[in-house]
């Protein structure tokens, strides 16, 4: 996927004027937050579970190597294979290699953000393997040559008309705008692919160390068909998804669905534990797990380690007023919203992603809803520190800040400055109490008036009052 994060501001401006997108974002805001709130209200121990989940994740991250090695040992015992991939490229090559060994022409895919991260689809296509997305949202996006704008509702930026249009064009069927009909149409198309596929690729919500199992959580059941029908199943997962036991996994599952969609549980929670055994009714003959690092182990032990607690529930973006205004594509890479504003700089570099951690008012809503209590605003601020240290912030900002700091550190001068700035603004404001255009604050006055000071500064007035009183 092409990196467009440096164009965040332009993309955001376009997104704000895109009526269709705004309508779609309106649906998102009217849906997820209310459902989450209701689910949380039904579960008195929710806050306690969040503490437990945070602590457990912290423990796992302290012993990541041990749990991953245990996981690998169990997978191998179950007849599967684990592939350790340091970079996106390693992961892509490994997956292609497995596909080639199977002489695969078609692979079906369950929803997986990590395969977006490593740019898998494009790579497979370039190498003669046809990936078919089977999650409805992802399928629609693939038809349109589009990318996810949300980590669990990838096509949230589209409206019914867009879907209807895409199906009509690609399925060559009469146009329909009945969601049930469209669903049936997609199902019919996908069935053929499920049967034809040589390899099924899924992501993983968690990796369970004690059993060597991987789990996917879906609402469509597409993942089950993706992983049980083909002879070969490849699970692509990032390394921080490992949890010690099945019991631990269920703690996260309870938080995940509620935080994401407000469901108690997702509809399908499917565990995969290695190759098909002789008396199994179905399952793959070859089971592979591709573990992707891609910069994550570099985060361990740094001030960004807490980000690795993320369970990809999407609550932070569902509740983010910035995401809700501009949508996921504006962020210009795979992971949008607050979690993306912390992860993206790690993966593509702060030089390219600097606008993302700055695009936050630090309102703190994301941290308020994050099930594993990631202090997202603090982590975004850490990226701003890195930017500042590396002298990456725009010159105007640095100079403005430098000038302001000079005065802020000298109280006497600061007094004089505020008094004269106040006077200047009052003169501009005249009788109106506000100004509607201020060239040095055009960002403000393009959209709103600037109320002007109502009199001399408080410090001036207070001093005068003290003098008066002591007379």
């Amino acid at each position, binding site marked *: 996927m092409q990196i467009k994060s440096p164009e965040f*501001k332009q993309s*955001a401006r376009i997104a*704000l004027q895109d009526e269709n997108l705004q309508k779609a974002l309106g649906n998102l805001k009217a849906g997820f937050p209310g459902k989450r709130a209701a689910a949380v209200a039904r579960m008195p121990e929710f806050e306690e579970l969040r503490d437990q989940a945070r602590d457990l994740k912290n423990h796992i991250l302290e012993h990541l190597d041990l749990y991953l090695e245990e996981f690998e040992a169990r997978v191998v015992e179950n007849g599967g294979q684990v592939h350790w991939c340091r970079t996106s490229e390693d992961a892509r090559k490994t997956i292609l290699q497995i596909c080639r060994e199977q002489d695969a022409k078609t692979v079906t895919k369950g929803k997986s953000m990590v395969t977006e991260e490593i740019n898998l689809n494009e790579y497979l296509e370039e190498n003669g393997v046809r990936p078919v997305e089977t999650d409805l949202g992802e399928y629609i996006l693939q038809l349109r040559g589009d990318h996810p704008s949300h980590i669990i509702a990838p096509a949230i930026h589209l409206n019914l008309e867009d879907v209807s249009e895409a199906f009509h064009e690609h399925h060559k069927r009469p146009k329909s705008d009945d969601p049930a009909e469209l669903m049936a149409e997609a199902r019919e198309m996908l069935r053929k692919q499920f049967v034809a596929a040589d390899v099924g690729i899924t992501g993983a919500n968690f990796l369970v160390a004690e059993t060597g199992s991987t789990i996917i959580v879906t609402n469509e059941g597409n993942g089950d068909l993706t992983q049980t029908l083909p002879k070969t199943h490849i699970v692509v997962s990032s390394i921080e998804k490992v949890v010690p036991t099945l019991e631990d996994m269920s703690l996260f599952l309870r938080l995940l669905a509620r935080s994401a969609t407000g469901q108690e549980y997702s509809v399908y929670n499917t565990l995969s534990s290695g190759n098909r055994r002789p008396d199994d009714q179905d399952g793959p003959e070859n089971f592979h797990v591709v573990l992707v690092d891609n910069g994550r182990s570099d985060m361990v032990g740094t001030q960004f380690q807490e980000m690795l607690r993320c369970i990809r529930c999407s609550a932070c973006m569902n509740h983010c*007023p*910035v995401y809700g*205004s*501009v949508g996921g594509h504006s962020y210009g890479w795979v992971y949008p919203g607050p979690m993306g504003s912390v992860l993206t700089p790690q993966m593509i570099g702060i030089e390219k992603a600097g606008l993302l951690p*700055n695009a*936050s*008012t*630090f*309102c*703190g*809503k994301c*941290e*308020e809803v994050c099930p594993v209590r990631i202090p997202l605003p603090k982590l975004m*601020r*850490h*990226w*701003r*520190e890195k930017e*500042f240290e590396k002298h990456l*912030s725009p010159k105007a*900002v640095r100079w403005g*800040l430098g000038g302001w*700091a000079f*005065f*802020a*550190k*000298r*109280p006497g001068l*600061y007094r004089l400055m*505020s008094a004269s*700035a*106040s006077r200047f603004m*009052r003169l501009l*404001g*005249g*009788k*109106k*109490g*506000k100004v*509607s255009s201020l060239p040095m604050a055009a*960002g*403000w006055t*393009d*959209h*709103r*008036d*600037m*109320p*002007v*000071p*109502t*009199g*001399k*500064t*408080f*410090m001036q*007035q207070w001093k005068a009052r003290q003098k008066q009183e002591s007379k």
Partner: protein
Amino acid sequence: MSDAHTPPIKVGLFVTCLADMFRPEVAFATVKLLEQAGCSVDVPDTQTCCGQPAFNSGDNQTSRDIARQTIKAFDGYRYVVGPSGSCIGMLHHYPELFTEDDPWKARAEDLKARAFEITSFLVDELGFSGIQSRFNGRITYHDSCSGLRELGIKQQPRQLLAEIDGVEMHEMQEAETCCGFGGTFCVKYPDISNRMVSNKTEFAADSGAETLVGGDLGCLLNMAGKLKREGREIDVRHVVELLADMTDNAAIGEADYDLGKAI
């Protein structure tokens, strides 16, 4: 609250830059409320800004310098109180700026323990319930983010406002959603900020309130500026103006006298 037997509680007023420059009434109203609650109020003149612009721009060196200056300015006061959840929230961040072995860490922690936003100070720390004020009209309350999420300010202002004669509270939808101010955010990302503040003014108007009230001047200037630009007839005021019965002057962004002459 205090009488001849109890010495007044010594409070240092953290004025905040915006109250100092844009709306001195807010600082005067804070002083009035503190005095009504039995405090004696000083205004240390070595204070400037809380340092948030530097902190949020990743400039920790400047933030530290300003933190030390603020800590020194408020040495010796039992409490530090200000009319802003955002600036007081920043004072609460000071300990993060110093390492464990730095003696300033303990001083920052000490300041944090003494620093309060005005409504939470009156309610949570003093248990004050002696509001003497009249305000006729329908109001709605915007919960500013830092106050709400960093300091837990939600019911305190509402509890105090309910004591005012004549006030009718009409909660708006999404009272807790950010107004899009965000300090430098509103000039760095003007289009997004504009969308956020437009959502806010719409909810405020839908609530049927005549006055929009809040506890942070940054947000209030932002929302008042937008309401004026949209031509909506909603007044905007800081909560302390209502609580201290100081609402005779014009609301934010309005003027009933010649400001040019008030110099």
